[in-house]
């Protein structure tokens, strides 16, 4: 008769080494892509939410209620939650100082503890010069000259702004590449980076297009955020950012390094997406 203890102690279903390496490589790629994406996002760091966003929304709403009940109106003022589409959640804080979201981060930790869902709030860091940014992108992205060149690689059909702030023009278009510096397979890229600069390249507008789904879901933070309607589509806006989801694709326009560009300019740019 087979010895049960032997079966229990010696059976190992995980012996397929190739499969193990494939799973590990996939997860490491995902982790690295997230890190690269944070770096390339013009100084605003984000973290993906792996949980279902509606669960995040429900949990977060519940916890905000708990916080309100526990701490009174101060916290209610301090944390506000915004959602755009099904896969993006934003938090904002009245007492954020100099674009530092430390106070938000503390409160988000409380939300995480209550909900058991991992989320993170965006934070700003020193913005790179044009040359430093190009240097930082080396080996991480592949450049394309035109939007038509990059389209076959995308998992979505991108819209581009027709109206740009005065003095700005398309500078570069890029996709994240794999660890060997090659583009991901045709039709599979869920992220697209588009950069507009002035002639001197001292100012830059960054636009990331992101196909929204469970894999690309994210949370982010801001100082002063409000909802906005862009051609009937719900979005959010703050001093430097307009985010709007159109046709399942999030268009994130960021002007962290474009001092001359006003919020109105960015809204017009978003409204001109065709």
């Amino acid at each position, binding site marked *: *008769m087979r010895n049960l203890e032997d079966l229990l102690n010696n059976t190992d279903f*995980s*012996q397929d080494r190739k499969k193990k390496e494939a799973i590990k490589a996939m997860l490491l790629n995902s982790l690295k892509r997230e890190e690269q994406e944070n770096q390339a996002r013009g100084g605003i760091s984000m973290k993906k939410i*792996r949980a279902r966003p509606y669960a995040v929304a429900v949990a977060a709403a519940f916890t905000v209620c708990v916080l309100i009940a526990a701490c009174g109106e101060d916290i209610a003022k301090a944390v506000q939650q915004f959602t755009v589409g099904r896969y993006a959640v934003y938090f904002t804080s009245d007492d954020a100082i100099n674009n530092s979201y430390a106070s938000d981060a503390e409160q988000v930790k409380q939300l995480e503890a209550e909900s058991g869902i*991992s989320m993170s709030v965006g934070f700003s860091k020193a913005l790179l010069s044009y040359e430093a940014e190009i240097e930082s992108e080396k080996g991480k992205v592949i450049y394309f000259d035109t939007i038509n060149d990059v389209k076959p690689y995308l998992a979505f059909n991108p819209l581009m702004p027709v109206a740009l702030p005065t003095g700005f023009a398309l500078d570069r278009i890029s996709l994240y590449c794999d660890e060997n510096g090659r583009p991901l397979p045709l039709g599979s890229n869920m992220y697209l980076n588009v950069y507009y600069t002035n002639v001197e390249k001292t100012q830059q507008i960054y636009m990331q297009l992101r196909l929204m789904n469970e894999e690309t879901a994210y949370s982010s933070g801001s100082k002063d955020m409000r909802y906005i309607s862009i051609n009937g589509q719900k979005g959010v806006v703050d001093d430097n950012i307009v985010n709007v989801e159109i046709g399942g694709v999030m268009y994130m326009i960021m002007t962290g390094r474009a001092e001359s560009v006003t919020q109105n300019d960015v809204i017009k740019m978003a409204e001109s997406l065709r």
Partner: protein
Amino acid sequence: LESITLLCGEAITEARTDEGIGAAVFEGIFEAHYKRVYNFCAYRINNRHDTEDLVSMVFEKVIAKYSTYRPSGVPLEAWIITIAKNVVNDYFRHKKKRACIPLDFVNDAAVSATDSQPEEIFMTRENNAALMRALNALTEKERTIVAMKFAASLKNVDIASIMSLGESNVGAIIHRSLKKMRRVLEGEES
């Protein structure tokens, strides 16, 4: 942070996790816990392809939630298996297909061990099949606890914590489960 974690291996006691997980830390955790996570899922669902998907999901959640892990609380392996347990529960909740899951570990698992001899492959297949038949005799709760004990190599105290049971109760359930499984194997021999 990363060097501390790697040096300590499974017994991460001092490392801070607030800043999330880096590639090197993740690789260390993956190597240390892949086998237990894979076998835990395999014991529970017995479907090769779905197991691979679930293992990926478990480690994705480890990446996403690592900043919330507190080394001073439960051991890392127990924390990871708690995640695995929830992932498997979600799998059953969404798919509701436990009854029609094929016994494909029986056919596939041994074949994938490419350096095995034909006789070894045959024996492994037979043993895998016997183990799965014995596991099928258990209730879901018993199967989860047996998977935690033998596939994930958790201590009874950690299983008790995860399952919200007393430690002695866990011991009794394991004893009763092994009896049931032994009966299945004996029945096959007679």
